[in-house]
């Protein structure tokens, strides 16, 4: 009898200390078994990893793998059935939805910030200046209030979600100069900008840190709050995609990303959670 008493008391304690929502969502995985494979956009990785770790810690019978590869890889692999969830940093094209029968789940907002070297005296640019810089019309920093030095341009590769967002929302679809240097990840972009005093490029707001300096565009301050409240407009959505309606474990995983836990992981990675209606 005494043992039962202690057991129920500890159970009660557990319930009191745990947030009920958290318990409910992770509870859904109890007794489940199997594997979830996730691939695609690199911006998604911190969120996917945090969610995967939390699930695997609580239910060791579930295995979740998370790899990158980029938005295109995400679409292709989920479409061909090689992974269960394919992540993209852009909306799916109609042709992709048609070809593979994909379902899409936007779960986070990511802002793209224009970044320069921390020692660059320029703190803000107008959209017009930004377009002229990236199309190669303005080639020297002194023309926009900076030091007497040529501007070096850094862009992301064709098809990158970050690039698409930037060109659509910040450059009004202007085409960047063809002599821009091309980096193939947010990390590579940051490394190059932090090394080059005359650099200008762009990274996801979640990737901003002391190694680069973000500049304001038309007075818009790039920050998570501003991206969320709509006052910073160079933003994009991050998507999870599945082939057909997600079933079983995959369904649970997607629900978990939308749960309060998932929103915590999204905020921790520097993005803004999308609340599912």
């Amino acid at each position, binding site marked *: 009898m005494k043992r039962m008493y202690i057991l129920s008391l500890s159970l009660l304690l557990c319930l009191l200390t745990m947030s009920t929502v958290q318990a409910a969502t992770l509870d859904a995985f109890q007794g489940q078994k199997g594997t979830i494979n996730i691939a695609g956009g690199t911006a998604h990785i911190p969120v996917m990893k945090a969610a995967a770790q939390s699930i695997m810690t609580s239910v060791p019978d579930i295995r979740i793998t998370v790899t990158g590869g980029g938005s295109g*890889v995400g679409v292709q692999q989920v479409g061909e059935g090689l992974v269960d969830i394919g992540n993209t940093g852009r909306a799916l094209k109609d042709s992709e939805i048609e070809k593979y029968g994909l379902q899409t789940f936007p779960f986070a907002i990511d802002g793209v910030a224009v970044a320069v070297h921390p020692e660059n005296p320029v703190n803000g640019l107008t959209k017009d200046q930004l377009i002229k810089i990236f199309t190669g019309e303005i080639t020297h920093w002194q023309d926009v209030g900076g030091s007497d030095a040529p501007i070096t341009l*850094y862009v992301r590769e064709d*098809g990158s979600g970050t690039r698409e967002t930037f060109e659509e929302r910040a450059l009004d679809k202007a085409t960047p100069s063809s002599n*821009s240097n091309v980096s193939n990840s947010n990390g590579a972009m940051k490394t190059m900008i932090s*090394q080059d005093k005359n650099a200008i490029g762009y990274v996801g707001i979640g990737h901003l840190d002391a190694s680069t300096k973000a500049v304001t565009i038309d007075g818009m301050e790039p920050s998570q709050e501003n991206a969320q409240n709509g006052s910073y407009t160079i933003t994009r959505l991050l998507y999870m995609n599945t082939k057909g309606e997600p079933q079983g474990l995959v369904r649970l995983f997607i629900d978990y990303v939308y749960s309060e836990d998932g929103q915590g992981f999204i905020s921790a990675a520097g993005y803004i959670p999308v609340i599912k209606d």
Partner: protein
Amino acid sequence: MEYPKKTHDFSWAQTYVYLAAGFVLASVILLVVMIVVFAGPALLEQGNLGIFTWHWNPYQGHFGILPMVMGSIILSFSALFLALPLAISLCGLMLTAPKHLAVKVLQAAIRFMTAIPTVVYAFVGVLLLTPLVRLTFAGSGLSLLTATLVLALLIMPTMVLVLNSGLGFKLDELCPHGLAIGLDKFELLWFFVFPRSKKTFLAAGLLGFGRAVGDTLIPLMLAGNAPQVPQGLGQSLRTLSAHMALVTANEVGGAAYSSLFMAGFLLLGISALVSIISRALVKN
């Protein structure tokens, strides 16, 4: 007369060798067939989009890959012209003074260098070489020069090893008599071995070229990747290999993706041509 009885049956080994050879051959054929099958439609259907033009901008429907073809050729020849004389000098040093401590250290270092993955070269290049190049030329430091220097460093050890094995035995053959008539090793190498070793030089050069043209990570991380033909050493360029790595990361289907198979076909063509020429030369 009685033959000794066979103690071992090696027919399994023979079967195994045939299987392995067949497998490799089939893979190569499959690779070529696949690339041709995919590249063909790209060329036929999207021929009007101009794959063989000088302008790459997929958002505006320009899929010209000629800047990348030029990029690959310019970069690998630059690296080759830098690395070949260096490799010949190093090889000469190793053959003429093989017992010197410094030469022994050098030899060990060069053997070790052949085992370093290209991503390590590229990463060190990004951290150490690009800032120097940036100070010399204005710009980003990601340029033809940077990629050439690192690529030369990558292909040089392989070439030294090929040269060493090709020239070493010729020198050894000449040595006893040559030294007896009063010539030293360097004179033997310079006057007798080098003039009769054109094929070894060519083989080493072609092997180096093949490695340089196929490498992806060094140009991807160091050449800047701007889809243009560089007008100088300090300018950014994009090679076919880096181009494929950049586009496959994000594209599935569509004209840009299809044009990659053409790019792959050209890269395969360049590599195959170099390999065929080098084989023919080594055979003769």
